């Protein structure tokens, strides 16, 4: 049950655990995954989960309601917390790459599935690249710095080259900007 003041990350554990108990995998992604890996640098306003199987709105609500959440448009809110929960449409992917592996963290009987640090960086970077969203760059850099050992920069570069090749709207200079910010 979500209590007033429950943090975004504690809430993510509670939600993920509820879906796990119901037999479904909900993977934390987007800005909330960035918050998980770099909490000192960025705190998202919502927990974003992509489900590995498609559930109806009713099925999702049936799992969320016992936690104290209610529907508010397309998102879920609960009393006494400032953040919300959302279930964006799948598939779980970053750009053209399907995500088939993620990290699973267990603590005190709870479980959290969360995209890997590299995928969190790629996702945030994609916001910067697709929408000129400078906050996306900041978040990508924050995660990359906080999780330096878990980030394979060569893999990141290879992915950006592939995305730029397939999506001409992307500006390769964005990658240079990311690397520059990472070294700053």
């Amino acid at each position, binding site marked *: 049950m979500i209590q007033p003041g429950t943090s975004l990350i504690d809430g993510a554990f509670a939600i993920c655990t509820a879906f796990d108990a119901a037999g479904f995998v909900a993977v934390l992604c987007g800005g909330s995954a960035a918050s998980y890996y770099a909490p000192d640098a960025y705190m998202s306003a919502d927990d974003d989960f992509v489900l590995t199987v498609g559930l109806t709105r009713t099925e999702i609500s049936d799992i969320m309601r016992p936690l104290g959440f209610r529907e508010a448009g*397309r998102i879920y809110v609960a009393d006494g917390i400032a953040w919300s929960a959302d279930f*964006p*449409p*799948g*598939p779980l*992917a*970053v*750009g*053209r790459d*399907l995500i088939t592996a993620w990290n699973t963290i267990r603590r005190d009987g709870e479980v959290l599935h969360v995209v890997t640090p590299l995928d969190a960086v790629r996702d945030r970077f*994609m*916001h910067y690249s*697709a*929408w000129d969203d400078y906050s996306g760059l900041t978040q990508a850099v924050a995660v990359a710095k906080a999780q330096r050992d878990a980030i394979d920069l060569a893999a990141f570069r290879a992915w950006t080259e592939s995305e730029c090749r*397939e*999506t001409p*709207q*992307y500006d390769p200079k964005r990658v240079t900007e990311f690397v520059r910010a990472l070294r700053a």
Partner: protein
Amino acid sequence: MAAHRDDALFGSQLRERILTLLVLIEPAYPRQIATLLGAHLISVQNATRALQEMGVVATRLFGRTRLVELDRRWYAAAELRTLLERLAEADPQVRTIASTVRKRPRLPGKAV
């Protein structure tokens, strides 16, 4: 001439026309799309919301205006764009509509 079809991709003909228009003029705002397509604003807003929930379009605020565009982050965004460009190619009406949209700068005081 565009082939008339009773069926529609993406669930409705309006959704399909919005997407086909967007590939030519994005970003666009709902009222602009409604005017260009001769559709009701509320219908365009509903269709846009449905497309957003499917993940194929994204909206963002620019000042007080909500802009609608194809979501480049979507898993099959490149393939969708190719499909829509192909559909637009075969739809002279939507291309004519798109050609009326001025995007280049205009000095203040000059007739729009």
